């Protein structure tokens, strides 16, 4: 009876995969085994630090992360967490990283707009003062905010990783719109730009972001060889962490909750058997 119920629930859930698959149009995402996946997954702190560097030196030139604060970097599970500093605002790395950035403020004496070094209480600075400025600098396209990007794209980390490494030469017969770039993982419909066999329109789409990662573009402080592939993995891990800084806490907490619930269910099952033992039913 129980199995039936679970099967029924599973059937219901089978529908959920539907809309995600229906997006169509792009190539199947690249597979990679991420250490943070699975019920016992953990982020690799060194990887998160490398990923932060890629974000800081490459992505942050155009992309904001309005919902992420410097203090978050030093919270438990974060890239710069140090158990010596339980209060993330005391963490010297987070303080130093914040101080590198300039954020707009108001001078409390004169009321004039000023720029001051960020503190751990500040969010990552936005590269553009407003959306119009962001569009003007990016050929009319708006670079999306990356705060929750891993949750905001179907496929999550797999999508980010695939997209960053998915710039390939456009197949012959495909006219790439000027100012945009062909990426086989970007969801789109290329029928209008395709002069080849209409039954075999290439997968992917055109996006305004040029390829960003290249071998040696970022120097990793821990000596990890800085290939474009490695940069893509590291920044994907960082963005996944930033999208959900409490993911590891959630899974750890969940493991305890599951053990509790299973034991509780077993106890209730035996109580049930005992209470009902003299009732024919």
């Amino acid at each position, binding site marked *: *009876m*129980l199995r039936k*119920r*679970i099967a*029924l*629930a599973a*059937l*219901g*859930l*089978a*529908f*959920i995969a*539907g*809309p*995600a698959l*229906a*997006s169509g149009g792009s190539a199947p995402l690249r597979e990679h085994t991420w250490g943070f996946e699975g*019920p016992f997954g953990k982020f690799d702190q060194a990887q998160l630090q490398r990923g932060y560097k890629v974000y800081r030196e490459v992505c942050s030139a155009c992309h904001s992360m*309005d*919902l992420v604060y410097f203090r*978050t970097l030093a919270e438990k599970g974060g890239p710069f967490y140090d158990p010596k500093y339980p209060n993330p605002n005391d963490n010297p790395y987070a303080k130093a990283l914040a101080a590198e950035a300039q954020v707009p403020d108001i001078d409390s004496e004169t009321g004039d707009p000023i720029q001051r070094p960020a503190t751990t209480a500040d969010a990552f600075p936005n590269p553009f003062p407003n959306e119009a400025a962001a569009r003007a600098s990016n050929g009319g396209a708006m670079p*999306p*905010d990356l*705060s*929750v990007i891993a*949750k*905001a*794209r*179907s496929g*999550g980390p797999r999508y980010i990783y695939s997209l960053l490494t998915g710039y390939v030469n456009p197949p012959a017969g495909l006219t790439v719109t000027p100012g945009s770039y062909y990426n086989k993982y970007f*969801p789109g419909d290329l029928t209008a730009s395709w002069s080849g066999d209409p039954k075999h329109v290439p997968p992917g789409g055109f996006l305004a972001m040029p390829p960003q990662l290249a071998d040696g573009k970022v120097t990793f402080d821990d000596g990890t060889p800085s290939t474009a592939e490695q940069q893509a993995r590291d920044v994907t891990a960082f963005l996944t962490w930033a*999208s*959900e*800084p*409490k993911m590891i*806490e*959630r*899974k750890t*907490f*969940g*493991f305890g*909750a*599951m053990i509790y*619930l*299973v034991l*509780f*269910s077993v106890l*209730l*099952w035996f*109580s*049930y058997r005992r*209470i*009902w033992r003299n*009732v*024919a*039913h």
Partner: protein
Amino acid sequence: MSGHSTYEPKTGFERWMDTRLPVIRLAYDSVVAFPTPKNLNYWWTFGGILALMLGIQIVTGIVLVMHYVPHVDHAFASVERIMRDVNYGWLIRYMHANGASMFFIAVYIHILRNLYYGSYKAPREVLWILGCLIYLLMMATAFMGYVLPWGQMSFHGAVVITNLLGALPIVGESITTWLWGGFAVDNPTLNRFFSLHYLLPFVIAGVVGLHIWALHVPGNNNPTGVNVKSAEDTVPFHPYYTVKDGFAISVFLILFASFVFYNPNILGHADNYIPANPLVTPAHIVPEWYFLPFYAILRAIPDKLGGVLAMFGAIGVLFVLPWLDTSKVRSMRYRPTAKLYFLIFVLACLVLGLCGAKLPDDHVIPIGSTFQLFDADLNSFVWLSRIATAYYFAYFLIVLPILGLVEKPLPVPESISAPVLDNAKKD
């Protein structure tokens, strides 16, 4: 069964209270001594599960409201702030979001159990109608709750659904303007949805009270569908069903926890983590999974008003079900033909859910186009949803009324205890 109370106040305080406000007596009669058929199976545990889910939704919801900001400019960020900066905010918010899905899983099983065992039949029609009302209120609450994070699906879902009411003749436009609080989905819409999303759960709780009251007059139906004949047929609710429901609830919570802790976003849609932007429409606007069957019925009808009427009709028909089913036998355990039609009905509902998630023109079987029938290819989800929609309505409007008159049911046991004792002899 709601006969005289067997409660005897034992302490001085209980006697004092009993002559003033007999709430202890009420509690004793409803959840301790309440005589319950002894043959209820696990499909009967979903009532208790639903009561718990309502409680979880209300408690987590009240905490979320302490941190949420109902404004188009701040709603999205405030939800993320709950996830990041509020102590255990991620747990509370994921429980609330996934709790809605669990609530619907449980309510669908609860409704299908009713259909199978004929629990809606006399003398439980009012009980059933109150249940339909709860379901309708749940749908309204869930829809408005999904709008609150103000993501892309929140916004465009709200636009699509509120626009549907615009299809109603004469009053349609006024109703949508009134719902929106303006001429488009905007801050006033978010504010009133927030207000109603907070109000409706308490309305649900009130109707649940009536639902339980209406249950305690005729008492539970049971898998045989035979009325309780003697005290031998029943056991007191406590401890027999508190422990059985408790076990089922605990197992259900394992399912719930597996979503909350390990796959909290799988039941949602990635687009809802993109802040709402009225100028960018998502490629596919899909509702939450629990609305997909109704969404498929809506799209199955080529006419907008017709689609809206069919969608509401699909719920409306449930309200009159007790008078559509003509069978004298309650439980389908003794109605082999009806059982078959019921299984097809469950299948039709699942197919409708599938159709709701797919694009109407996509092929069902990957063999390409077959031939055009009226406005769409026969091998498309729109035609599959039309077939399933037709069956959905036919089940209520044709199968149940006619079958009750023409079928020959199997012999029904004398009493609840009779088949139970037969089983015992076999063991």
